[in-house]
């Protein structure tokens, strides 16, 4: 788990991450970028082990700064995007989740508070998954 947010670090450790901090302690075989920040692409590529793969999971990413071939891509490091999911992914994941329910830390909001939920997400104040209670 790599994040600048102390709350997110604490949550990651609570949910079972091996470490949480600014930089990974050892080169990584694989990495997933959830943060919508293109600036992190070279950082994450550089932190990969030889032959490692970085998957960018978001639908939106700010501009990626220029990459240095040797530092960021050579040694067969791979940069990939992730675009939504297939129904087969959905079924496979939900079957796994039904068998072994994941630890989900939710932060509930009333239906009328949807605006506040978005604002909290924008400022990184949601420690967990924001959920609107509707019916």
């Amino acid at each position: 788990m790599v994040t600048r947010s102390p709350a997110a670090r604490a949550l990651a450790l609570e949910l079972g991450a091996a470490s949480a901090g600014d930089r990974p302690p050892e080169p990584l075989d694989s990495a997933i970028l959830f943060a919508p920040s293109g600036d992190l692409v070279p950082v994450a590529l550089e932190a990969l082990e030889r032959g490692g793969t970085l998957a960018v999971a978001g639908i939106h990413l700010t501009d990626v700064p220029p990459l240095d071939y040797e530092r960021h891509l050579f040694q067969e490091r791979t940069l990939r995007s992730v675009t939504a999911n297939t129904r087969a992914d959905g079924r496979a994941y939900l079957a796994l989740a039904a068998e072994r329910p994941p630890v989900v830390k939710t932060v509930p909001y009333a239906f009328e508070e949807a605006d506040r939920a978005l604002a909290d997400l924008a400022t990184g104040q949601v420690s967990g998954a924001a959920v609107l209670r509707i019916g």
Partner: protein
Amino acid sequence: MRSRPLALVERPVPVAGPGEVLVRVEACGVCRTDLHLAEGDLRSRRPLTAPGHQAVGRVVRPGGGDGGRVGVAWLRSTCGRCRQCARGLENLCPESAYTGWDADGGFAEYLTAPAAYVYPLPEDAPAETLAPLLCAGIVGYRALLRCDLPEGGRLGVYGFARRRT
């Protein structure tokens, strides 16, 4: 972000079209994509559309009966005929449509969705804990497949949260 990108409005209960189900929403997850839409990082595709693509709810049968619990997620429909659909990559279908972007989503008491694209969900878990599985979970799972994690390998995950001042 605009201070109030959302407005609470009264609308009639939607009517399920052919092949669709009507779902009474119990809970809906709030995802970063909803935020990108509210902030305009993703262009709106349809005016006055309810966001939300992690809806947990109950199918309301045409006669009003209960059709069980389902999840309505981001992928709303695909064409089923293009090269990508034929290759098992329906997520890349050029005609794919998305819940809360191309059609009203789960920030609402009711929504409709194509029956073939909703997921049956367990009855015995709170709706609130199931909702985040529908995007954070499913897309996270695809991301995990896409990052080729070797057996016993070290995985890094960047950014649960963003800080802005």
